């Protein structure tokens, strides 16, 4: 029969079409031929010669196999075999394959999508040369209170910091561009001469600012963004040297930034006009942003120490105009400053999707384990035919890997689409969001996720499925009803793990949704419906004196109030919820001691009708009135919080104070107390606030917002407002037109976003856990049909059977819930900063979530349990 084997080997060799195999064959054949010839030479008959040659040679197939293994062809061939076999198995069970791939795709896709945002926002370095040397500089006088830099501060820093680096100051402002078809509001970042040099990116065309161009006597210049150049100037290469009219001042275009240049701020400006600093007369207002670049070799600590030293010098020099003994200059890495608090949200989301991926993998592992019992026979037969344990594990693992790769590929598609979706539903502009893209890092992460999930769901079943005890499954007669105890334990453990993972996710989502609902019920302190808000910046060139601006506003308010459908119209320096300016103050009755920082409160300059327009209630005294004008005594209205905090047990009406550290000013008299308004956003604390008449306090007089209360749809009043404004000044443009409802939605947005995303992830987790426990219990029931039949035959009642099956599920889910509770308690404190009005260990949320999870488990178990009670003992027994 050797010839047959030989022939087979030949056939197999050709069929493999494998170069290595062929080569080995040729060589072995050569050997046998040589021996045969030699034998014939020695006088044997050809037949005898050949037989002798073969018998001396040994088992040719085995030798070939061994050779093949040494030559390294084995590995590849096995992989190919396993892959083809695995693919066949997947195609054979399309339902299973579909569910598994979809589960994995969701897990990997969600992870990759969130990671690509984390990567873009948190991980990628800032797109400037040596970004680690860049710092943001601000002032700080307590752990919570940070504020900007004044001109006096900046000039002090600029002079002294030159020894260890360079600094630049900037401020963001909307400006009106005139000279086109109609005036237009554009976003500008006014920056000092060293701006581009400090961040390290130069204009692509033209030049950056020159030293000295930021002095007031120099002629104004501007650098354009690529987008603005393309959009407004049609990419005209002759743009450099042109003049642009910004707020009525002519700026010469000197440079154009490269395409894709990312501004070192959360807003992306259209252009960068030079910031020309006037010689200050006092320290304040603190409105400039400052970026510093340390020289090479200067550590952040050294930079900070130097800033502290400069602060002492500058503060002493200006002590006669402003004192705050607790304040100093503080530097923070620019990247950290730009990211802000979005980092926590992103990391929480990443943790959540990580849990989801783990859950998905565990579910697939469970599916594979369940399926394994039906494959026990197949595996046993293969083992009996001589497949080694390692070989079988490898084959099963290859199948899992195939699943994981399919899931990973589908997940990557989901991720690309998911990132767009995540960004589209994101309410806030996430800083650095333009850095988000699918790059090598993201692909690597997706690959890692795939591999990780494959290890979780593939390796365990593979190891457990390969049962070294061959006899049992073969004896089982094909039903495979003897489950390996180790495997049953593993499946139970997996279900416990699923519940333990799902619980923290549900708790997190519960807390977020709870916060969101509470936030939604927060009283903003005014009536937000039917309010239209518009920013109305006045160019300083055209309105150089405060009086001109005041007159403009008076005339505009008169005309707009008279419009049909407008209930009332007013102006304010800052809109509610959007964050405002603060000012320090000193009470006549309790002056700030010289070595202490002055108290601060939100500071508004408003028209008298402001309170009526917004619906802010009067609590004491009176509102501001038309009589509180330039000629009247300086007056203000304060908020309830301020009254309670600074005048406890006193009547604030008639009390006097001075603001802004101004010592020579007249006293301002408090004439009324109004309700608190959420100034910094719905989740912010009620803050002390001061409201002054706009014609007494000229602060911010050129950057007022118009608010009007309308009848009917507020947004429909935009055209008439524009017409009225332009009938007074045709060069003015409206900016940031929003209804108050939109501002409310924006303030709720972050909270809603977090609640929504975590809610979705938690729902997925809940579904996966439910499917997981259902699968295990249903499988257990099918395994125990025989036993249940006997129990019923012996007189067990149906409800006993039901209780037994459900009890099994409940033990598993409760064990999981126990572990999950511990994990949740340990984890939710990281959410604390994202919550509003709910403690991170809110008992109600915890109890609710546990109940929900247990109910779902109960439901998932009761389906198979009902099936168990319907077992017909005769059928079950006869089936044996």
């Amino acid at each position: 029969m050797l010839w047959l084997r030989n022939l087979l080997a030949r056939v197999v060799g050709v069929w493999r079409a494998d170069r290595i195999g062929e080569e080995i064959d040729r060589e072995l054949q050569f050997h046998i031929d040589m021996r045969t010839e030699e034998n014939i030479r020695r006088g044997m008959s050809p037949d005898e010669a050949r037989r002798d040659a073969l018998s001396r040679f040994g088992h040719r197939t085995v030798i070939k196999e061994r050779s093949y293994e040494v030559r390294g062809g084995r590995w590849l061939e096995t992989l190919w075999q396993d892959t083809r076999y695995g693919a066949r198995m997947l195609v054979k069970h399309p339902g299973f394959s579909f569910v598994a791939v979809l589960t994995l795709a969701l897990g990997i896709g969600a992870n990759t999508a969130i990671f690509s945002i984390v990567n873009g926002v948190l991980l990628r370095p800032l797109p400037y040369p040596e970004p680690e040397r860049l710092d943001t500089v601000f002032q700080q006088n307590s752990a919570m209170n940070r504020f900007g830099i004044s001109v006096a501060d900046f000039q002090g820093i600029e002079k002294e910091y030159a020894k260890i680096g360079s600094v630049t100051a900037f401020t963001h402002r909307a400006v009106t561009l005139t000279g086109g078809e109609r005036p237009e509001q554009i976003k500008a970042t006014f920056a000092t001469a060293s701006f581009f040099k400090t961040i390290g990116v130069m204009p692509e065309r033209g030049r950056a600012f020159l030293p000295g161009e930021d002095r007031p006597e120099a002629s104004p210049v501007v650098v354009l963004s690529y987008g603005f150049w393309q959009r407004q100037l049609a990419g005209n290469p002759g743009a450099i040297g042109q003049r642009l009219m910004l707020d009525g001042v002519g700026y010469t275009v000197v440079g154009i930034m490269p395409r894709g240049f990312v501004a070192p701020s959360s807003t992306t400006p259209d252009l960068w006009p030079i910031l020309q600093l006037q010689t200050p007369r006092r320290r304040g207002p603190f409105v400039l942003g400052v970026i510093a670049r340390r020289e090479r070799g200067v550590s952040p600590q050294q930079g900070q120490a130097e800033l502290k030293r400069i602060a002492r010098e500058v503060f002493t020099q200006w002590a006669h105009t402003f004192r705050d003994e607790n304040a100093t200059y503080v530097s923070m890495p620019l990247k950290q400053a730009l990211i802000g608090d979005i980092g926590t949200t992103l990391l929480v989301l990443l943790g959540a999707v990580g849990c989801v991926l783990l859950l998905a993998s565990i579910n697939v592992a469970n599916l594979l384990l369940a399926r394994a019992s039906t494959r026990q026979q197949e595996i046993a037969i293969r083992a009996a035919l001589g497949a080694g344990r390692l070989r079988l594990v490898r084959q099963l693992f290859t199948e899992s890997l195939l699943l994981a790769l399919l899931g990973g590929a589908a997940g990557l598609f989901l991720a690309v689409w998911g990132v767009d979706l995540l960004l589209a539903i994101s309410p806030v502009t996430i800083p650095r969001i333009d850095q988000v893209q699918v790059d090598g890092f993201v692909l690597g992460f997706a690959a890692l996720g795939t591999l990780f999930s494959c290890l979780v769901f593939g390796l365990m079943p593979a190891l457990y499925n390969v049962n070294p005890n061959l006899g049992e499954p073969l004896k089982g007669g094909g039903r495979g009803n003897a489950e390996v105890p180790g495997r049953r334990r593993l499946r139970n453990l997996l279900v416990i793990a699923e519940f333990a993972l799902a619980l923290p996710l549900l708790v997190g989502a519960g807390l977020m949704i709870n916060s969101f609902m509470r936030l939604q019920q927060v009283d903003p302190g005014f009536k937000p419906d039917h309010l239209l808000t518009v920013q109305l910046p006045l160019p300083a060139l055209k309105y150089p004196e405060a009086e001109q601006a005041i007159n403009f506003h008076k005339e505009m308010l008169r005309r707009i109030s008279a419009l049909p459908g407008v209930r009332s119209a007013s102006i304010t320096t800052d809109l509610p919820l959007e964050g405002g300016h603060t000012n320090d103050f000193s009470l006549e009755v309790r002056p700030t001691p010289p070595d202490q920082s002055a108290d601060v409160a939100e500071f508004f300059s408003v028209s008298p009708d402001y309170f009526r327009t917004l619906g802010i209630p009067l609590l004491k005294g009176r509102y501001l009135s038309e009589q509180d004008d330039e000629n009247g005594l300086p007056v203000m209205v304060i908020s309830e919080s301020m009254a309670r905090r600074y005048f406890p047990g006193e009547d604030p009406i008639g009390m006097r104070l001075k603001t802004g550290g101004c010592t020579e000013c007249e006293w301002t008299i408090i004439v009324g107390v109004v309700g608190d308004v959420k100034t910094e956003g719905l989740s912010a604390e009620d803050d002390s606030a001061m409201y002054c008449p706009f014609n007494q306090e000229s602060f911010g007089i050129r950057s007022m917002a118009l608010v009007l209360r309308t009848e009917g749809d507020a947004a429909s009043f935009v055209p008439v407002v524009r017409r009225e404004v332009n009938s007074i000044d045709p060069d003015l443009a409206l900016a940031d037109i929003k209804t108050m409802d939109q501002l409310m939605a924006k303030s709720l947005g972050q909270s809603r976003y977090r609640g929504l995303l975590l809610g979705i992830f938690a729902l997925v987790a809940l579904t996966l856990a439910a499917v997981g426990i259902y699968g295990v219990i249903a499988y257990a029931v099918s395994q125990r049909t025989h036993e249940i039949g006997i129990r019923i035959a012996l007189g067990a009642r149906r409800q006993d059977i039901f209780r037994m099956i459900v009890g099994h599920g409940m033990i598993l889910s409760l064990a999981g819930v126990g572990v999950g509770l511990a994990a949740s308690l340990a984890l939710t404190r990281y959410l604390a900063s994202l919550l509003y009005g709910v403690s991170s260990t809110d008992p109600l949320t915890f109890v609710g979530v546990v109940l929900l999870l247990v109910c779902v488990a109960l439901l998932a178990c009761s389906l198979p349990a009902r099936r168990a009670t319907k077992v017909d003992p005769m059928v079950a027994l006869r089936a044996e």
Partner: protein
Amino acid sequence: MAKQQKADLLQGTLDMLILKALTHGPMHGYGVGQRIMQLAEDMLRVEEGSLYPALYRLEERGWIKSEWGTSENNRSARFYKLTAAGRRQLNVEEENWARFVSVIGKVLQTS
């Protein structure tokens, strides 16, 4: 006819014999087998096929090199050649073997 007493090959010694056989110059696999038989004066029992996995293993380790050539009877055959590393390895193995034999011999001679 008294049957000749043949020795089974000790585990791991085949590699050494192959290296030794190749010291006289390049040879194909069949030649290596013949050469070993000839050197052993037919006193060794070697399954001829087992030469090949051993040859491939030695080649993997870089002790021998192979290329296709033409045999003495004009057929294409794979020829093996000792490399410098193989020559060094042979020296090492010969020394080890000598030491092994002398030690075992000493043990067996003491009564």
